[in-house]
């Protein structure tokens, strides 16, 4: 075994963990929506795109760059963009999604799943193309000096092997983990979190216990949008983006959520992490074009072998 191979592998592993952390956060956002409400939201990738542009414009046009500088500024902008997207998601649910979910859809075909799908597809179309009109088709990026410097880990194994961790990606990954832990505390420890979990588990029973499930759903939708948008902002500090970027990531998100098991927040995070690792590690053996095909193959394999995901459980009654 050559040290070159070990180095490549460790490097891919590091890249996978860094990408995986951001994917994980993204998936957690979708997991909230999908897990709590069982709504397939096609517009999730476009929420992420909005998060990217929100951070971008806050950074450049609202004085954050001037105030905080190029190093801290982007992260401040991302933190400010997050509540904006929460409100966006909250109102999208209030005015659109709520009309095709919940109790009133029970008598519809497939309990309204068809309607939900096509509604969110409509939202996605409007956001993508509206984005094209408003933001233009030019690639945008949030530039930070950190993205062109790296920490060196090592050298290990004598002097042969050392791993480089891009600073901006490293910070983005840390950011993701902190946000994830914060969200987990919110869900696991607070009254709001309990209400969300109850609404997810058994909406009818939750109603009897005096929980306003419509409110829970709105908040879950808003939180989901906000969390994914934050992940988008973090991604934007590393990669250029455009109004159609959402569609590229929506698949990654669903793969991650299903891998992790529906209804499990931590599961969604590890699902996203797995996707990041598969994507990066597959570059060792596969041509780059097949990177994404590898994700889908793993996704399909897991769906067949363990459809309830790593962390989920499946209950079926006759």
């Amino acid at each position, binding site marked *: 075994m050559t040290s070159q191979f070990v180095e490549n592998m460790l490097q891919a592993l590091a890249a996978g963990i860094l990408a995986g952390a951001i994917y994980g956060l993204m998936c957690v956002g979708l997991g909230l929506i999908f897990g709590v409400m069982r709504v397939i939201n096609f517009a999730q990738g476009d929420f992420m795109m909005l998060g990217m542009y929100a951070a971008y414009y806050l950074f450049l046009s609202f004085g954050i760059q001037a105030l905080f500088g190029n190093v801290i500024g982007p992260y401040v902008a991302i933190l400010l963009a997050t509540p904006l997207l929460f409100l966006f998601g909250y109102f999208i649910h209030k005015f659109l999604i709520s009309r095709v979910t919940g109790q009133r859809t029970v008598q519809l075909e497939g309990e309204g799943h068809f309607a939900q799908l096509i509604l969110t597809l409509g939202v996605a179309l*409007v956001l*993508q193309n509206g984005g094209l009109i408003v933001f233009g088709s030019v690639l945008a990026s949030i530039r930070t000096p950190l993205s062109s410097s790296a920490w060196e880990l090592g050298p290990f194994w004598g002097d042969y092997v050392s791993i480089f961790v891009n600073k901006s990606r490293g910070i983005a990954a840390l950011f993701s983990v902190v946000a994830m832990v914060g969200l987990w505390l919110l869900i696991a420890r607070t009254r709001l979190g309990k209400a969300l979990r109850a609404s997810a588990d058994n909406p009818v029973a939750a109603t009897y216990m005096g929980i306003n499930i419509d409110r829970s759903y709105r908040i879950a939708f808003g939180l989901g949008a906000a969390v994914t948008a934050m992940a988008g902002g973090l991604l934007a500090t590393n990669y250029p983006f455009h109004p159609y970027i959402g569609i590229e990531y929506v698949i990654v998100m669903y793969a991650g959520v299903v891998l992790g098991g529906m209804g499990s927040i931590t599961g969604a995070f590890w699902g996203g992490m797995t996707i990041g690792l598969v994507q990066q590690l597959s570059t060792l053996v596969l041509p780059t074009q097949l990177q994404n095909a590898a994700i889908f193959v793993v996704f399909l394999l897991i769906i067949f072998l363990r459809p309830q995901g790593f962390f989920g459980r499946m209950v079926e009654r006759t």
Partner: protein
Amino acid sequence: MQTLRSLGPILLAAAIYAAITLVVTNSYYQLTLTLVLVWAIFGLSWNILSGYTGLVSFGHAAFFGLGAYATALGQIYFDLSPWVLIPISVVIGGLAGVLIGLPTFRLRGHYFALAMLAYPLALLYVFEWLGYQELTLPIKRETPFAYMQFSDPRMYTMVALVMLLVVVLITRAVERSRFGMALLAIKQNEAAAEAAGINTLYWKLCSIALSGAIAGAVGAFYAVVLLVVTPPSVFGMLVSAQALTVSMFGGIGTVWGPLIGAAVLIPVSEVLHAELGAKIPGIQGVIFGLAIMAVILMAPEGVYWKVRDWWRKRHAPAPAITPTLPEHVVPFSPAPARQRRPVTGPVLLSVKGLSKSFGGLKAVQDVSFDVHEGMILGIIGPNGAGKTTLFNLLNGFLKPDAGEVMLDGKNMVGRRPHELCVAGVGRTFQVMRPFPRMSVRDNVRVGAYVRAASEEEAQRLADDAVARAGLSSVAHKVAAELTTKELRLMELARALAGKPRLLLLDETLAGLGHGEADEVVAVVQRLAREGVTIVIIEHTMQAMVRLVDHFLVLDHGAVLVDGEPEEVTRNPRVIEAYLGKKWGAAHARA
């Protein structure tokens, strides 16, 4: 004759469309006219799978793209004509359907939808990697017709129109046959369909194969029309979304849905693109999106159903009230003093040492009993005693951890529910599982297919079963409008239609008022007299004592007592299980 007349609207629409095609000369609008048909066919293909079975496919682009690439590659490398390649694409699409369906049908609901999403996208990357980023079909100037390269764009529209008509005819044939009934039953309640003798996996595979074949054909045709094939344009998510959108917009589960959807949405988006695309790129997407959202908020099941409901409401005659119910209802005579029949017939069902655990919970432990031909066996026990689990083991919904279920001396463990239904085991459910949108007659017909060779025979068996259950007066009502008692009887009829030798009734009397329960009991007794062997679950003893020949009492998953009704009701252990220790002790002393 009737089928011909019902084809009228479709043929008329096709004729008008052909006339419009002949008039339009602008080549861009001409292309739009062709594309409307392409997406309508693709929508119909999606509809055959997702519209009728309710399993949403996000991945129909997989079949579409395979057809398109097969045609492009076939023409480039083997110089084959599209006239040959389109049929080949049909085969490829159908095969792909079976290959994809076999593993994917293990999944349900959202999981199925998401797994389907992955296929075309994986294929997209594979075709990019293979170096087919952009394929152009070679132009054949010498023999344009042989290669489907018409100089007059109207010809493409005509070819597409013929394809569409064929697909419409196929869809209608499916809709009216046992194939369509099976799919609708699966959509409304898969477990009930399986218990009614429908091999759900088989029919789902037929459906995805047919759907994939049609999608393959239309994908191939699309490649011929556009002459250029790229992975995103045939495998992309927007392609799958197109099938979904036109069908859902127009209405799911009907031939008309995709036709309406394509006829409205495709021209709108093309015109917007042509008129405004240059000035404001993306505007057509925005307006298109808004239009979809508006329609879905106003008509969540699609335009067709909305219009139809509205039309029916306006034109529905005042419902005629028929007060002449009594003569159809089963003449109800208070249960005669039970003539206990000696339990001596040959053993039909023999259960030996049956056990099933869920995690640490032993739901059924080491249960053994025999059911003799012609008897009514009552299984009673308090809530949670394992009664329904026992039934699920008997008719194949669950696989036991240990033990045997012998029907006619053959071990049936491991058989699927529909196979048991074929073997003669019918069942009803504790939580009723009607097909709510189907009429009582159709509900029961689903159960009849397992014995019927033809549509007519199925209908005859169904009508017979409906009459035996005393439901003739409501036979044309939709199941959703029935009362609880009628639903119970309908489930009974659905099970009866398959001519079962053994009928498993799961809490058939639950939720019924006293008089209603007596009516159902009367029907059950009559069935027993007609020679059907019955096993019935209840947790109330009252009605059962009059009904059954033999009792099996379950508690905590195990057999507590096995005996004659009188003996069982006096058994202190039974009283204890039902009423608690204290009562049992008191009773024993008395």
